[in-house]
């Protein structure tokens, strides 16, 4: 079970169920014991009353006169309350008019013994000896049974009500528990939502107003985010400074080179320039990172097309942007700009004034131009990992830079033949949400 809410709910539910079950059973047992005792006493009282209303003939036959017994149900047929008198062998001698059928057989209890059974109603049998004036004693058994004792009926309805109440209480408790969990786990859910908001670029940090238990977590995440942003900014600034301080002297050297400068010097200057450019770019590439805010693709492409339109004004650059406004890539904005800038610049440089940027059905970036297309070995060079710093100037250095960035995001760059010229297809599985 991988949810706190699920765990708590399951555990609490099981405990609640067991508690209610035992409570119910204990209560039912207590009530049943109480009813038994009460019934036994009632039937015992009835036995004494019946014995009191019994007399013996001179020849030893017992007679019971029900008229004096305050139990009218004994005289009502089929009332459920019956009394039967058996002789020593268990043969019925007499029974109350309420019994219409045959008297039940009996296993006589010992002398002066009570036998109480509860099942389908309650039965109480009493074994006794009747002393005749002539000194004989006659062994008898008196059975009183009540199939529809009022107490038992009450008990059944009480039990039913008891279980209904218990079920109702459990349902109520469960609902309360659900509410409690919902309320108690709300801060955790909010942290989750806020992380999602940071990922989507709607928020910068997690709110500090969280319960004390998870405050260290929220503060830790915030500190991490801040640290990372500061680090990134400092890193970029340092790289920019380094680039500036290295490249200006190089520019001076190169600008002062003239016809008398040995060609080897110029070549070395070019090589140093490419090396610096390549390494700085590689260092500046942020690469794939969790909690990256996705960048909207279309505005970026529009900015680049406007900028390239200025640079390639003489060709009258026409840029077709076939991107939905919702298209986003989870990349560092600088990296994405660098990737698109190099690819679009390449398309503008080698094409004849038309280029198109689009997303295909699989979320891959497709950049078309109307130029002569790529040389047959271009893709092999890229695949073999020809590095940007080893390339000759003007030999599609933009593509090599783009390839470096795509690699940093675990993606793939392919060169193809497009409908009007060259086509570059970039798959960025890690950046495509």
């Amino acid at each position, binding site marked *: 079970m991988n949810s706190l809410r699920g765990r708590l709910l399951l555990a609490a539910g099981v405990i609640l169920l067991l508690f209610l079950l035992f409570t119910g059973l204990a209560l039912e047992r207590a009530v049943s014991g109480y009813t038994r005792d009460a019934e036994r006493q009632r039937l015992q009282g009835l036995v004494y009353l019946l014995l009191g209303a019994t007399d013996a003939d001179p020849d030893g036959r017992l007679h019971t006169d029900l008229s004096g017994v305050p139990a009218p149900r004994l005289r009502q047929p089929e009332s459920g309350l019956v009394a039967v008198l058996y002789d020593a062998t268990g043969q019925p001698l007499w029974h109350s008019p309420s019994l219409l059928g045959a008297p039940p057989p009996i296993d006589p209890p010992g002398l002066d013994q009570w036998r109480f059974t509860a099942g389908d109603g309650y039965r109480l049998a009493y074994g006794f000896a009747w002393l005749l004036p002539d000194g004989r004693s006659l062994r008898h058994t008196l059975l009183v049974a009540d199939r529809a004792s009022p107490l038992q009926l009450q008990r059944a309805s009480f039990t039913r009500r008891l279980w209904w109440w218990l079920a109702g209480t459990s349902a109520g408790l469960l609902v309360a528990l659900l509410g409690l969990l919902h309320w108690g786990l709300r801060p955790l859910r909010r942290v989750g939502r806020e992380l999602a908001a940071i990922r989507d670029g709607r928020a910068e940090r997690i709110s500090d107003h969280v319960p004390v238990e998870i405050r260290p977590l929220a503060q830790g995440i915030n500190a991490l985010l801040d640290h990372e942003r500061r680090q990134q900014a400092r890193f970029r600034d340092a790289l*920019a400074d380094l*680039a*500036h301080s*290295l*490249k*200006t*002297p*190089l*520019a*001076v*050297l*190169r*600008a*002062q080179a003239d016809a008398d400068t040995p060609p080897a010097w110029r070549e070395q*200057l070019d090589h140093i*320039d490419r090396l610096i*450019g390549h390494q700085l*770019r590689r260092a*500046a590439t942020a690469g794939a990172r969790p909690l990256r805010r996705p960048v909207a693709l279309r505005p970026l492409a529009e*900015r*680049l097309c*406007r*900028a390239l339109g*200025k*640079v390639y*004004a*003489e060709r009258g650059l026409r840029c077709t942007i076939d991107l939905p406004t919702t298209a986003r890539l989870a990349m560092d*904005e*600088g990296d994405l*700009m*660098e990737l*698109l*800038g*190099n690819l679009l*610049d390449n398309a503008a440089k080698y094409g004849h004034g038309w280029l198109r940027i689009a997303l295909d059905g699989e979320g891959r970036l497709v950049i078309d131009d109307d130029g002569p297309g790529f040389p047959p070995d271009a893709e092999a060079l890229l695949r073999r990992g020809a590095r940007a710093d080893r390339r000759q100037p003007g030999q599609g250095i933009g593509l090599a830079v783009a390839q470096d960035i795509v690699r940093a995001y675990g993606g793939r760059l392919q060169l193809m033949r497009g409908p009007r010229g060259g086509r570059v297809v970039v798959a960025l599985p890690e950046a495509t949400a």
Partner: protein
Amino acid sequence: MRVLVIEDDADLRATLVERLEAQGYAVDAAADGTEGAWMATEFPLDLAIVDLGLPGRDGLAVIEALRQAGRDYPVLILTARDRWQDKVTGLEAGADDYLTKPFHMEELLARARALIRRSGRWSQSELRSGPLVLDTAAQQVTLDGQPLALTAYEYRLLEYLVLHAGEVLSKTRLSEHLYAEDDERDSNVIEVFVRRLRRKLDPDGRLQPIETLRGRGYRWRLPRHPAP
């Protein structure tokens, strides 16, 4: 053609000024953003070459300021930052092209020429007007296919006239665009050069390429080929 160079590195600035002047440009130079921004808004320029990492005012701010002041001459950015983010920001601030350091001087000169041509609405590197062809890269002029020997100053004046063909150009404007701020200026010199150009371009008086508008200035009256 008057060019402003704003670059804080003294060596690079000196080299740039030297190479641009050798190409016949009148060059003003500033070492920081504050001075550069003042020059960029006050001087009659045909091109500004601006380094982005400047002390005083940042290069981007300089470009924004000069565009804000309504100056519409082309601006070329020089920058050590070669990330596209920086390039796009620079172009959005109002620059027309960029070059990353370290650059090849030939590349810079070619970009400068192209930008100036574009601002005169010429799209080819050869300016053709009537029987005249100016190769701006080689700074050579041919008339009916015959090469013409011109001095550097004569070439500068001719190129400016042809670039702004059809416009009335006052003597002040011509001298402002052909001389840097520190050069000695004399508007009579313009008259002398115009006379010399007329003699070289039109010895028999049949073309009449330069029209004099009394009290207003001069106008190049031969048509552009191809027409803009």
